Protein backbone atom coordinates (compact mmCIF):
# COMPACT_ATOMS: atom_id res chain seq x y z
CA UNK A 1 0.00 0.00 0.00
CA UNK A 2 1.19 3.51 -0.75
CA UNK A 3 1.34 6.11 2.01
CA UNK A 4 -1.18 8.94 1.80
CA UNK A 5 0.35 10.71 4.79
CA UNK A 6 4.08 10.80 5.43
CA UNK A 7 5.31 12.18 8.73
CA UNK A 8 9.07 12.60 9.06
CA UNK A 9 10.99 13.70 12.19
CA UNK A 10 8.03 15.78 13.29
CA UNK A 11 8.44 17.96 16.35
CA UNK A 12 6.51 20.75 17.99
CA UNK A 13 7.78 22.93 20.80
CA UNK A 14 5.48 25.42 22.55
CA UNK A 15 6.90 28.35 24.46
CA UNK A 16 4.93 29.42 27.49
CA UNK A 17 6.11 31.95 30.12
CA UNK A 18 9.74 31.29 29.35
CA UNK A 19 9.32 27.51 29.41
CA UNK A 20 9.79 25.25 26.39
CA UNK A 21 7.31 22.42 26.22
CA UNK A 22 8.04 19.67 23.70
CA UNK A 23 4.62 18.36 22.70
CA UNK A 24 5.83 16.21 19.80
CA UNK A 25 9.38 14.89 19.71
CA UNK A 26 10.93 13.52 16.49
CA UNK A 27 7.97 11.44 15.36
CA UNK A 28 7.97 9.59 12.01
CA UNK A 29 5.28 7.34 10.54
CA UNK A 30 3.21 6.69 7.41
CA UNK A 31 -0.55 6.37 7.04
CA UNK A 32 -1.53 4.17 4.11
CA UNK A 33 -4.21 4.93 1.61
CA UNK A 34 -7.57 3.40 2.57
CA UNK A 35 -6.67 2.26 6.09
CA UNK A 36 -8.19 3.09 9.45
CA UNK A 37 -5.31 4.40 11.52
CA UNK A 38 -5.52 5.21 15.19
CA UNK A 39 -3.38 7.21 17.56
CA UNK A 40 -3.64 6.31 21.21
CA UNK A 41 -1.80 7.66 24.20
CA UNK A 42 -2.36 9.15 27.65
CA UNK A 43 -3.24 12.82 28.19
CA UNK A 44 -0.44 15.07 26.97
CA UNK A 45 1.01 12.36 24.72
CA UNK A 46 0.98 14.71 21.71
CA UNK A 47 -1.88 13.10 19.76
CA UNK A 48 -3.93 16.27 19.33
CA UNK A 49 -0.84 18.35 18.47
CA UNK A 50 0.16 15.79 15.82
CA UNK A 51 -3.41 15.93 14.53
CA UNK A 52 -3.34 19.72 14.42
CA UNK A 53 -0.11 19.66 12.41
CA UNK A 54 -1.37 17.01 9.99
CA UNK A 55 -4.56 19.02 9.40
CA UNK A 56 -2.51 22.22 8.79
CA UNK A 57 -4.00 23.97 11.83
CA UNK A 58 -0.58 24.57 13.37
CA UNK A 59 2.89 24.55 11.84
CA UNK A 60 5.57 22.11 13.02
CA UNK A 61 8.72 23.34 14.78
CA UNK A 62 10.71 20.73 12.87
CA UNK A 63 10.26 17.88 10.45
CA UNK A 64 7.96 17.40 7.47
CA UNK A 65 4.43 16.22 6.80
CA UNK A 66 3.15 15.30 3.38
CA UNK A 67 -0.56 14.75 2.87
CA UNK A 68 -1.50 13.21 -0.49
CA UNK A 69 1.87 14.41 -1.74
CA UNK A 70 1.40 18.02 -0.61
CA UNK A 71 3.66 19.67 1.93
CA UNK A 72 1.57 20.57 5.00
CA UNK A 73 3.60 23.70 5.70
CA UNK A 74 3.68 25.30 2.26
CA UNK A 75 0.78 23.71 0.41
CA UNK A 76 -1.89 23.84 3.10
CA UNK A 77 -4.36 25.34 0.61
CA UNK A 78 -4.05 22.16 -1.49
CA UNK A 79 -4.54 19.88 1.52
CA UNK A 80 -7.60 21.50 3.12
CA UNK A 81 -10.05 20.64 0.32
CA UNK A 82 -9.17 16.92 0.41
CA UNK A 83 -9.39 16.38 4.16
CA UNK A 84 -12.35 16.39 6.52
CA UNK A 85 -11.97 17.02 10.21
CA UNK A 86 -14.21 16.05 13.08
CA UNK A 87 -12.65 18.02 15.93
CA UNK A 88 -12.79 17.11 19.57
CA UNK A 89 -14.61 20.39 20.27
CA UNK A 90 -17.36 20.19 17.68
CA UNK A 91 -17.49 23.29 15.49
CA UNK A 92 -21.23 23.73 15.13
CA UNK A 93 -23.05 27.04 15.24
CA UNK A 94 -25.73 26.71 17.94
CA UNK A 95 -28.00 29.40 16.46
CA UNK A 96 -28.07 27.77 13.03
CA UNK A 97 -30.13 24.70 12.18
CA UNK A 98 -28.51 21.37 11.33
CA UNK A 99 -29.23 21.98 7.63
CA UNK A 100 -27.80 25.51 7.76
CA UNK A 101 -24.63 24.25 9.44
CA UNK A 102 -24.20 21.69 6.64
CA UNK A 103 -24.96 24.28 3.93
CA UNK A 104 -22.37 26.62 5.41
CA UNK A 105 -19.71 23.91 5.27
CA UNK A 106 -20.76 22.92 1.75
CA UNK A 107 -20.51 26.50 0.55
CA UNK A 108 -17.13 27.05 2.20
CA UNK A 109 -15.86 23.89 0.46
CA UNK A 110 -17.34 24.98 -2.90
CA UNK A 111 -19.67 22.00 -3.18
CA UNK A 112 -22.09 22.65 -6.09
CA UNK A 113 -25.57 23.55 -4.80
CA UNK A 114 -27.43 20.58 -6.29
CA UNK A 115 -24.83 18.03 -5.17
CA UNK A 116 -24.81 19.64 -1.74
CA UNK A 117 -28.60 19.39 -1.36
CA UNK A 118 -28.53 15.71 -2.33
CA UNK A 119 -25.68 14.97 0.06
CA UNK A 120 -27.36 16.83 2.91
CA UNK A 121 -30.55 14.76 2.53
CA UNK A 122 -28.55 11.54 2.17
CA UNK A 123 -26.27 12.13 5.15
CA UNK A 124 -29.04 13.42 7.43
CA UNK A 125 -30.91 10.17 6.79
CA UNK A 126 -27.74 8.15 7.26
CA UNK A 127 -27.23 9.50 10.78
CA UNK A 128 -30.94 9.57 11.66
CA UNK A 129 -31.14 13.33 11.87
CA UNK A 130 -33.57 13.90 9.00
CA UNK A 131 -36.36 14.84 11.41
CA UNK A 132 -34.11 17.34 13.18
CA UNK A 133 -32.74 19.04 10.06
CA UNK A 134 -34.49 22.32 10.79
CA UNK A 135 -33.80 22.42 14.53
CA UNK A 136 -31.13 24.66 16.03
CA UNK A 137 -28.07 22.64 16.95
CA UNK A 138 -27.79 24.47 20.28
CA UNK A 139 -30.57 22.17 21.52
CA UNK A 140 -28.98 18.95 20.26
CA UNK A 141 -27.68 16.22 22.57
CA UNK A 142 -23.98 15.33 22.55
CA UNK A 143 -24.62 12.31 20.33
CA UNK A 144 -26.67 14.31 17.83
CA UNK A 145 -23.95 16.97 17.69
CA UNK A 146 -21.29 14.34 17.11
CA UNK A 147 -23.27 12.73 14.28
CA UNK A 148 -23.93 16.11 12.68
CA UNK A 149 -20.31 17.08 13.07
CA UNK A 150 -19.25 13.88 11.29
CA UNK A 151 -21.45 14.50 8.27
CA UNK A 152 -20.45 18.16 8.21
CA UNK A 153 -16.83 16.97 7.87
CA UNK A 154 -17.64 14.76 4.87
CA UNK A 155 -20.06 17.03 3.00
CA UNK A 156 -17.30 17.82 0.50
CA UNK A 157 -16.44 14.13 0.02
CA UNK A 158 -12.88 14.27 1.40
CA UNK A 159 -10.23 11.65 0.68
CA UNK A 160 -8.98 11.60 4.27
CA UNK A 161 -11.00 12.02 7.48
CA UNK A 162 -9.38 13.09 10.73
CA UNK A 163 -11.41 12.23 13.79
CA UNK A 164 -10.27 13.55 17.17
CA UNK A 165 -11.70 11.46 20.02
CA UNK A 166 -14.90 10.57 18.14
CA UNK A 167 -16.80 8.80 20.88
CA UNK A 168 -15.72 10.56 24.08
CA UNK A 169 -18.72 11.06 26.34
CA UNK A 170 -21.17 9.23 24.08
CA UNK A 171 -23.57 6.42 25.00
CA UNK A 172 -22.92 2.87 23.67
CA UNK A 173 -25.62 3.19 20.98
CA UNK A 174 -24.09 6.36 19.57
CA UNK A 175 -20.60 4.82 19.75
CA UNK A 176 -21.83 1.86 17.72
CA UNK A 177 -23.41 4.25 15.21
CA UNK A 178 -20.16 6.21 14.91
CA UNK A 179 -18.16 3.00 14.37
CA UNK A 180 -20.64 1.94 11.69
CA UNK A 181 -20.21 5.30 9.98
CA UNK A 182 -16.42 4.99 10.15
CA UNK A 183 -16.55 1.55 8.53
CA UNK A 184 -18.90 2.81 5.86
CA UNK A 185 -16.62 5.73 4.96
CA UNK A 186 -13.64 3.37 4.93
CA UNK A 187 -15.46 0.93 2.64
CA UNK A 188 -15.91 3.86 0.23
CA UNK A 189 -12.11 4.14 0.02
CA UNK A 190 -11.59 6.98 2.47
CA UNK A 191 -8.61 6.95 4.82
CA UNK A 192 -9.57 7.47 8.46
CA UNK A 193 -7.28 8.72 11.19
CA UNK A 194 -8.52 8.59 14.75
CA UNK A 195 -7.24 9.67 18.08
CA UNK A 196 -8.93 7.91 20.95
CA UNK A 197 -8.74 7.04 24.63
CA UNK A 198 -10.88 3.94 24.16
CA UNK A 199 -8.76 0.86 23.58
CA UNK A 200 -11.70 -1.30 22.47
CA UNK A 201 -12.43 1.29 19.79
CA UNK A 202 -8.88 1.16 18.46
CA UNK A 203 -8.84 -2.64 18.71
CA UNK A 204 -12.13 -3.28 16.90
CA UNK A 205 -12.00 -0.53 14.34
CA UNK A 206 -8.44 0.12 13.29
CA UNK A 207 -6.04 -1.55 10.88
CA UNK A 208 -2.99 -0.07 12.62
CA UNK A 209 -2.46 1.67 15.93
CA UNK A 210 0.23 4.19 16.86
CA UNK A 211 0.98 4.44 20.58
CA UNK A 212 2.29 7.82 21.70
CA UNK A 213 3.70 8.83 25.04
CA UNK A 214 5.26 12.13 26.14
CA UNK A 215 5.49 13.35 22.55
CA UNK A 216 7.24 10.22 21.26
CA UNK A 217 5.99 7.38 19.11
CA UNK A 218 6.39 4.25 21.26
CA UNK A 219 5.03 1.66 18.82
CA UNK A 220 3.15 1.32 15.56
CA UNK A 221 1.59 -1.88 14.29
CA UNK A 222 -1.66 -3.79 13.90
CA UNK A 223 -3.53 -4.36 17.20
CA UNK A 224 -2.79 -8.11 16.98
CA UNK A 225 0.95 -7.60 16.43
CA UNK A 226 1.13 -5.08 19.25
CA UNK A 227 -0.46 -7.62 21.59
CA UNK A 228 1.94 -10.34 20.40
CA UNK A 229 5.12 -8.29 20.71
CA UNK A 230 4.25 -7.09 24.21
CA UNK A 231 2.80 -10.43 25.38
CA UNK A 232 -0.46 -8.70 26.23
CA UNK A 233 -4.00 -10.04 26.16
CA UNK A 234 -5.68 -6.76 25.32
CA UNK A 235 -4.79 -3.45 23.74
CA UNK A 236 -5.26 -1.84 27.14
CA UNK A 237 -2.46 -4.04 28.48
CA UNK A 238 -0.32 -2.99 25.50
CA UNK A 239 -1.08 0.62 26.33
CA UNK A 240 -0.09 0.25 29.99
CA UNK A 241 2.98 -1.77 29.00
CA UNK A 242 4.20 0.96 26.64
CA UNK A 243 3.16 4.11 28.51
CA UNK A 244 3.37 3.05 32.17
CA UNK A 245 0.88 3.23 35.01
CA UNK A 246 1.65 6.75 36.13
CA UNK A 247 -1.37 9.10 36.08
CA UNK A 248 -0.92 12.09 33.72
CA UNK A 249 -2.04 15.68 34.20
Amino acid at each position, binding site marked *: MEPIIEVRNLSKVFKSRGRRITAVDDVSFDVFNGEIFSMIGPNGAGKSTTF*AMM*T*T*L*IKPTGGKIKVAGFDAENED*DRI*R*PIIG*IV*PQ*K*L*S*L*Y*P*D*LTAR*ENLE*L*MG*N*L*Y*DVPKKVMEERIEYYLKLVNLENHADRFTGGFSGGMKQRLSVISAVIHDPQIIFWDEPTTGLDPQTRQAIWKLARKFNSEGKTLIFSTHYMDEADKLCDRVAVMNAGKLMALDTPENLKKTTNSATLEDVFIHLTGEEIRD
Partner: protein
Amino acid sequence: MKFLEIAKKDLRAEFRTKQMLNSMVIFALLVMVIFSFAFGNEATIFIPNLKKKIIDILAPGMLWIAFTFAGMLGLSRSFAGEKEEGCLDGLKLCPVDRSDIYNGKVLSNAVLMFLMEIAALPIFIVLFSYDIKNLPGLILVIILGTFGFIFVGTLLSALTVNTRTREILLPVILFPVLIPVILSAVTATATMLSNGDISDISGELQILVVYDIIFFVVAQMVFEYTIED
Protein backbone atom coordinates in the same frame (compact mmCIF):
# COMPACT_ATOMS: atom_id res chain seq x y z
CA MET B 1 -16.96 35.43 -2.27
CA LYS B 2 -16.71 33.12 0.73
CA PHE B 3 -16.65 36.15 3.01
CA LEU B 4 -20.33 36.61 2.14
CA GLU B 5 -21.07 33.11 3.50
CA ILE B 6 -19.27 33.95 6.74
CA ALA B 7 -21.10 37.26 7.09
CA LYS B 8 -24.41 35.61 6.20
CA LYS B 9 -24.13 32.99 8.93
CA ASP B 10 -23.14 35.61 11.51
CA LEU B 11 -26.06 37.86 10.61
CA ARG B 12 -28.51 34.98 10.37
CA ALA B 13 -27.56 33.85 13.87
CA GLU B 14 -27.63 37.42 15.19
CA PHE B 15 -31.04 38.30 13.71
CA ARG B 16 -32.46 35.19 15.36
CA THR B 17 -31.24 36.00 18.85
CA LYS B 18 -30.74 39.78 18.45
CA GLN B 19 -28.48 39.57 21.50
CA MET B 20 -25.83 41.98 20.26
CA LEU B 21 -28.04 44.26 18.21
CA ASN B 22 -30.48 44.87 21.07
CA SER B 23 -27.63 45.52 23.50
CA MET B 24 -25.91 47.91 21.10
CA VAL B 25 -29.06 49.91 20.31
CA ILE B 26 -30.17 50.12 23.94
CA PHE B 27 -26.69 51.15 25.06
CA ALA B 28 -26.43 53.89 22.41
CA LEU B 29 -29.88 55.23 23.27
CA LEU B 30 -29.11 55.17 27.00
CA VAL B 31 -25.91 57.16 26.48
CA MET B 32 -27.79 59.80 24.53
CA VAL B 33 -30.68 60.05 26.97
CA ILE B 34 -28.32 60.26 29.96
CA PHE B 35 -26.21 62.96 28.28
CA SER B 36 -29.33 64.86 27.26
CA PHE B 37 -30.46 64.98 30.92
CA ALA B 38 -26.94 65.73 32.13
CA PHE B 39 -26.50 68.67 29.77
CA GLY B 40 -29.86 70.15 30.83
CA ASN B 41 -31.08 73.59 29.74
CA GLU B 42 -27.63 75.14 30.22
CA ALA B 43 -26.48 73.36 27.07
CA THR B 44 -28.52 75.75 24.93
CA ILE B 45 -26.60 78.80 26.23
CA PHE B 46 -24.92 80.64 23.37
CA ILE B 47 -21.19 81.39 23.72
CA PRO B 48 -20.54 84.61 21.78
CA ASN B 49 -16.77 84.12 21.47
CA LEU B 50 -17.20 80.75 19.76
CA LYS B 51 -20.46 81.70 18.05
CA LYS B 52 -21.83 78.33 19.16
CA LYS B 53 -24.16 76.91 21.76
CA ILE B 54 -22.60 74.65 24.42
CA ILE B 55 -24.55 71.71 22.99
CA ASP B 56 -22.94 72.20 19.57
CA ILE B 57 -19.52 71.68 21.18
CA LEU B 58 -20.53 68.66 23.26
CA ALA B 59 -23.05 66.76 21.11
CA PRO B 60 -20.74 65.51 18.31
CA GLY B 61 -18.35 63.95 20.84
CA MET B 62 -21.27 62.48 22.72
CA LEU B 63 -22.67 60.97 19.49
CA TRP B 64 -19.37 59.25 18.74
CA ILE B 65 -19.02 58.05 22.34
CA ALA B 66 -22.41 56.39 21.93
CA PHE B 67 -21.47 54.86 18.57
CA THR B 68 -18.03 53.58 19.53
CA PHE B 69 -18.92 52.26 22.99
CA ALA B 70 -22.03 50.53 21.65
CA GLY B 71 -19.98 49.17 18.74
CA MET B 72 -17.41 47.84 21.20
CA LEU B 73 -20.07 45.51 22.63
CA GLY B 74 -20.47 43.88 19.22
CA LEU B 75 -16.77 43.81 18.39
CA SER B 76 -15.77 42.11 21.61
CA ARG B 77 -18.15 39.20 20.83
CA SER B 78 -17.27 39.06 17.14
CA PHE B 79 -14.62 36.36 17.48
CA ALA B 80 -15.24 35.34 21.09
CA GLY B 81 -18.40 33.39 20.17
CA GLU B 82 -16.56 31.53 17.41
CA LYS B 83 -13.71 30.70 19.76
CA GLU B 84 -15.96 29.45 22.57
CA GLU B 85 -17.87 27.10 20.25
CA GLY B 86 -14.65 25.83 18.62
CA CYS B 87 -15.89 27.27 15.32
CA LEU B 88 -12.86 29.49 14.70
CA ASP B 89 -10.69 26.38 14.29
CA GLY B 90 -13.38 24.94 12.03
CA LEU B 91 -13.22 28.04 9.83
CA LYS B 92 -9.42 27.97 9.79
CA LEU B 93 -9.49 24.34 8.62
CA CYS B 94 -11.79 25.14 5.69
CA PRO B 95 -10.23 26.00 2.32
CA VAL B 96 -10.97 29.65 2.98
CA ASP B 97 -8.49 32.47 2.63
CA ARG B 98 -7.81 34.05 6.01
CA SER B 99 -8.72 37.46 4.62
CA ASP B 100 -12.18 36.08 3.77
CA ILE B 101 -12.72 35.39 7.46
CA TYR B 102 -11.71 38.99 8.24
CA ASN B 103 -13.84 40.47 5.45
CA GLY B 104 -16.84 38.39 6.49
CA LYS B 105 -16.51 39.62 10.05
CA VAL B 106 -16.06 43.22 8.87
CA LEU B 107 -19.25 42.96 6.85
CA SER B 108 -21.34 41.49 9.66
CA ASN B 109 -19.94 43.98 12.20
CA ALA B 110 -20.61 46.85 9.80
CA VAL B 111 -24.24 45.79 9.26
CA LEU B 112 -24.82 45.67 13.04
CA MET B 113 -23.10 49.04 13.54
CA PHE B 114 -25.11 50.72 10.79
CA LEU B 115 -28.39 49.30 12.11
CA MET B 116 -27.53 50.62 15.57
CA GLU B 117 -26.65 54.03 14.08
CA ILE B 118 -29.85 54.12 12.00
CA ALA B 119 -31.82 53.57 15.22
CA ALA B 120 -29.77 56.02 17.29
CA LEU B 121 -29.34 58.96 14.92
CA PRO B 122 -33.03 60.03 14.72
CA ILE B 123 -33.25 59.88 18.54
CA PHE B 124 -30.12 62.05 18.76
CA ILE B 125 -31.59 64.61 16.34
CA VAL B 126 -34.84 64.78 18.30
CA LEU B 127 -33.25 64.87 21.77
CA PHE B 128 -30.87 67.69 20.87
CA SER B 129 -33.30 69.53 18.55
CA TYR B 130 -31.10 69.59 15.48
CA ASP B 131 -32.34 70.75 12.11
CA ILE B 132 -29.74 69.22 9.85
CA LYS B 133 -29.55 70.74 6.39
CA ASN B 134 -26.72 68.56 5.10
CA LEU B 135 -27.86 65.08 6.08
CA PRO B 136 -25.93 63.32 3.25
CA GLY B 137 -22.72 65.00 4.49
CA LEU B 138 -23.39 63.79 8.05
CA ILE B 139 -24.15 60.29 6.78
CA LEU B 140 -20.90 60.26 4.77
CA VAL B 141 -18.93 61.17 7.90
CA ILE B 142 -20.69 58.48 9.92
CA ILE B 143 -20.05 55.84 7.23
CA LEU B 144 -16.34 56.66 6.93
CA GLY B 145 -15.87 56.89 10.70
CA THR B 146 -17.72 53.63 11.24
CA PHE B 147 -15.63 51.78 8.67
CA GLY B 148 -12.45 53.07 10.32
CA PHE B 149 -13.74 51.79 13.66
CA ILE B 150 -14.76 48.41 12.18
CA PHE B 151 -11.56 47.82 10.18
CA VAL B 152 -9.30 48.30 13.20
CA GLY B 153 -11.76 46.89 15.72
CA THR B 154 -12.27 43.61 13.86
CA LEU B 155 -8.52 43.11 13.52
CA LEU B 156 -7.86 43.80 17.20
CA SER B 157 -10.86 41.71 18.23
CA ALA B 158 -9.21 38.74 16.48
CA LEU B 159 -5.90 39.60 18.12
CA THR B 160 -7.37 39.58 21.63
CA VAL B 161 -9.61 36.54 21.21
CA ASN B 162 -7.04 34.15 22.69
CA THR B 163 -6.58 36.21 25.84
CA ARG B 164 -8.54 35.61 29.01
CA THR B 165 -9.29 39.30 29.54
CA ARG B 166 -10.33 40.04 25.97
CA GLU B 167 -13.38 42.18 26.90
CA ILE B 168 -11.11 44.48 28.94
CA LEU B 169 -8.09 44.35 26.66
CA LEU B 170 -9.91 45.19 23.43
CA PRO B 171 -11.00 48.76 24.34
CA VAL B 172 -7.65 49.41 26.02
CA ILE B 173 -5.71 48.69 22.83
CA LEU B 174 -8.38 49.83 20.37
CA PHE B 175 -9.14 53.39 21.52
CA PRO B 176 -5.57 54.72 21.26
CA VAL B 177 -5.40 53.43 17.67
CA LEU B 178 -8.77 55.04 16.97
CA ILE B 179 -7.74 58.55 18.02
CA PRO B 180 -7.22 59.87 14.45
CA VAL B 181 -10.54 58.52 13.24
CA ILE B 182 -12.51 59.67 16.31
CA LEU B 183 -11.02 63.18 16.29
CA SER B 184 -11.67 63.62 12.57
CA ALA B 185 -15.15 62.16 12.79
CA VAL B 186 -16.10 64.35 15.77
CA THR B 187 -14.81 67.53 14.10
CA ALA B 188 -16.54 66.72 10.82
CA THR B 189 -19.76 65.77 12.61
CA ALA B 190 -19.71 69.12 14.50
CA THR B 191 -19.39 70.98 11.20
CA MET B 192 -22.24 69.01 9.62
CA LEU B 193 -24.48 69.53 12.67
CA SER B 194 -23.80 73.29 12.44
CA ASN B 195 -25.05 73.14 8.85
CA GLY B 196 -21.59 73.56 7.37
CA ASP B 197 -20.78 72.60 3.83
CA ILE B 198 -19.06 69.38 2.77
CA SER B 199 -16.12 71.47 1.50
CA ASP B 200 -15.55 72.66 5.09
CA ILE B 201 -14.64 69.12 6.15
CA SER B 202 -12.48 68.08 3.21
CA GLY B 203 -9.42 67.73 5.49
CA GLU B 204 -11.26 65.47 7.94
CA LEU B 205 -12.73 63.42 5.10
CA GLN B 206 -9.26 62.92 3.64
CA ILE B 207 -7.96 61.69 6.99
CA LEU B 208 -10.91 59.32 7.35
CA VAL B 209 -10.54 57.91 3.82
CA VAL B 210 -6.76 57.47 4.15
CA TYR B 211 -7.17 55.88 7.61
CA ASP B 212 -9.81 53.47 6.28
CA ILE B 213 -7.68 52.45 3.29
CA ILE B 214 -4.50 52.00 5.33
CA PHE B 215 -6.12 49.85 8.00
CA PHE B 216 -8.14 47.81 5.51
CA VAL B 217 -4.97 46.97 3.54
CA VAL B 218 -2.90 46.34 6.68
CA ALA B 219 -5.60 44.04 8.05
CA GLN B 220 -5.64 41.98 4.83
CA MET B 221 -1.89 41.46 5.22
CA VAL B 222 -1.63 40.72 8.95
CA PHE B 223 -4.94 39.06 9.80
CA GLU B 224 -3.51 35.60 9.08
CA TYR B 225 -1.01 36.04 11.90
CA THR B 226 -3.51 37.42 14.41
CA ILE B 227 -5.59 34.22 14.42
CA GLU B 228 -2.68 31.80 14.62
CA ASP B 229 -2.60 29.70 17.79
